[in-house]
C-alpha cells in the first residue's frame, strides 16, 4: 500500500485545540464580522492530504501563521509547506486549498496560494501554476482531478 508514495512516512503532529468562535464558522456574506486568520484556518485545516489519511493540519502542511488575511482589501494569502521538497502532490494540495476557499469565501475575495519559501524544489514553477486561473479552470473540468479534490475536501465539510 505504501509503495510508490512520495513521502511514505510523514511526521504526524497533533491537532490544535479548536478555539470557540463567536460567529458561526459558515461564512455569511451579509454578516458584518470581518473574516480573520482563524476563520480561514478553520476552513482548510481538515482538508485531507492527497496520499495520507491525515489532515493538512496534522502534517503541518498548513498552520494558522501561514495565512494572511486583509478583509478590507478582500485578500487572502496561504503559504503551505509540502512534507517533502520534491512533493509532486504540491499542485494538488494547492488546488484543494484554492477550491475550498473559492467555495466558502465571498466572491469579492482574491486568493493567492503558494508553497512557503524554500520548501519546494520547483517553488517558482509550482506557484506559477497554482495562480494561473486558466490552468485552474481547466483542471477543474477534469473529472479525475475533481474526484481527487472532492475526496480531500470531504473531511473539511464535516
Amino acid at each position: 500500500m505504501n509503495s510508490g508514495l512520495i513521502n511514505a512516512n510523514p511526521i504526524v503532529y497533533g491537532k490544535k485545540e479548536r478555539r470557540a468562535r463567536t460567529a458561526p464558522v459558515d461564512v455569511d456574506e451579509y454578516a458584518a464580522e470581518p473574516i480573520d486568520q482563524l476563520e480561514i484556518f478553520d476552513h482548510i485545516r481538515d482538508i485531507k492530504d492527497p496520499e495520507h489519511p491525515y489532515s493538512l493540519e496534522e502534517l503541518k502542511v498548513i498552520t494558522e501563521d501561514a495565512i494572511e488575511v486583509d478583509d478590507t482589501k478582500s485578500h487572502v494569502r496561504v503559504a503551505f509547506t509540502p512534507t517533502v521538497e520534491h512533493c509532486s502532490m504540491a499542485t494538488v494540495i494547492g488546488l484543494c486549498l484554492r477550491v475550498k476557499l473559492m467555495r466558502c469565501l465571498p466572491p469579492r475575495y482574491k486568493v493567492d496560494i503558494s508553497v512557503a519559501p524554500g520548501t519546494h524544489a520547483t517553488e517558482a514553477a509550482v506557484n506559477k501554476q497554482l495562480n494561473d486561473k486558466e490552468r485552474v479552470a481547466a483542471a477543474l473540468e477534469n473529472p479525475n482531478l475533481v474526484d481527487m479534490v472532492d475526496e480531500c475536501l470531504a473531511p473539511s465539510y464535516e
Partner: protein
Amino acid sequence: MNSADENFELREIQRLEGHTDRVWGVAWKPATGVNGVPAVLASCSGDKTVCIWEQSPATGSFQQKAVLEETHTRTVRSCMWSPSGKLLATASFDATTAIWEDVAGDFECISNLEGHENEVKSVSWNASGSLLATCGRDKSVWIWELLPHNEFDCVSVLQGHTQDVKMVQWHPSMDILFSCSYDNTIKVWAEDGDSDDWHCVQTLGESNSGHSSTIWALSFNTNGDKMVSCSDDLTVKVWGADIMRMHSGDGNVPWAHLCTLSGYHDRTIFSVHWSREGIIASGAADDAIRLFVESIDGLVGEPSYKLLLKKEKAHDMDVNAVQWGSTENSLLASASDDGTVKIWQLTSSS
C-alpha cells in the same frame, strides 16, 4: 486623438446577464454598429456556451439574440468573427475549434477543427479571412486554411513555445502571426518566401526588455506598426516595427520594445486592446479597466503613453477581456469572472 484638454469618462451603458459562469471573451462583429447596422457582440464562457447580443436600433439597448450551445463540451475560452462577419470561430477547452455560420441570425456549426491534444485557448482570423490560427495547452500553434465550401485544411503546426500558448493574433494587414505564452515570450511567425513553410522569425523574451511572466494577450494599432502586450508581471508593453519594410514584403522585420507601462494594475493583466482611435484599454484581475493614450509630450522618436482614465471596480470580479467596437462609436465591451459582460461608452467633455 488630442486628449490634452479633455476630461474622459467611461460610462457603463449596460450590463449583459445571461451566462451562468465566468465570461472569458468578447468579440464585436465587424461592420456592425455603423451605417444603420445594429451592433452585434459575441461572448464566450465557462458555461460552455457563446451568447450573441444585438443592439436595438430603437432603444440602443443590447438583447440576447442567440445562444450557441450543445457543441462545445467544456469552457469556450475565446471567439472571433471572420473579417466578413459571416463566420464565428470559437476555441474550447474540449480541444476543438468550432466554426459557426450566421444565416440570417441562425447560427449553425459548419465545422469542428480537431487536432490539438487538449485545451484550445485562442483563435484568430487573418486580415483576409483566408487563414485561421489556433493555439493551446499542448504548446503548439496551428494554422488552418479556409478552402471553398467552408472546408478547413491544417497547413502548419508550429512548435517552439516551451509552455502553453495563451493567445494567437494575426497582424492587421500582413500574414504574420504572433503568439504569446506561459513561457514569458512572444513569438513572431512568418511564411517562407520559397516554400509554404511557416517558421519562427523572432522571439521577444526578457532579454529583449520583454515580460518576466505569462503573457496573456496582445493587440495591434490600426497601422500595424505597433503592438501592445500584457502580462502576469503586472506590466503593459508597447512594441514597434518598421511597417514600410514589412509592406515591401520583408517578413523578418524585427519588433523592438518601445516602452513599459507599470504601476497601473496590481494583479494579473489579462487583456489589452488598441482602439481605432489609438486608445489602449487594459483589463485585469484587480477588477479594474485602464485606458492609455500616446502622450504628445513624448520626446521625438520615443513614444510614451499616459494614463487617460482608470475605472476601479469595473466589475465585481476579475476582468478577463476588453474589446473596443470595430467602428468609431467608442463602445468598449468587457467580460468578467462575475458572469457579466458590460458595454461602456467613452465620452469626453472639454
